[in-house]
């Protein structure tokens, strides 16, 4: 299972801090 983040700004800050790309998955499907 993937550890999906749902707080966008916190996740983008994490990407910056860890020097990793971010993948944003925009969905309207049930989670």
């Amino acid at each position, binding site marked *: 299972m993937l*550890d999906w983040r*749902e707080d966008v700004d916190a996740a*983008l800050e994490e990407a*910056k801090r860890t020097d990793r*790309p*971010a993948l*944003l998955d*925009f*969905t309207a*499907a049930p989670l």
Partner: protein
Amino acid sequence: MYPDPRVEALIRDSFIPIRIDVRGQPELMERFNVQWTPTILILGPDGREHHRIEGFLAADDFLAQLALGLGHVARARQQWDEAIARYEGILARHPEAEAAPAAQYWRGVSRYKKSGDPAELAATTKAFQERYADTPWATKASVWG
């Protein structure tokens, strides 16, 4: 969400994955200029967008698009070896994918940017004569020959 374990592995190993349910957060569609789902954005660590995937794709095409995005992130950061490896991985593992001709093009650009040798661009033009000749990417590369 992604039934193919290769997709899940690539996302887990390479990205901070962020899921946005647009039904509850329509303002994020506006913020990131997204008009449709599914849409995948690949952002560099600095938050800049480097690749966009709109609509459903089969697993191999999706894997190739993710790798293309990783190549673009590396290229933007002038990490030429990483970019070249990502693009070559697409050509080796997903040669029939829609992203493959783009990978061949950007591999040539990355090789040139790394070496400064215009022969890398000419070699890319030649590569398009042998593979993916009937694609718009071949036309883009044709001016280098």
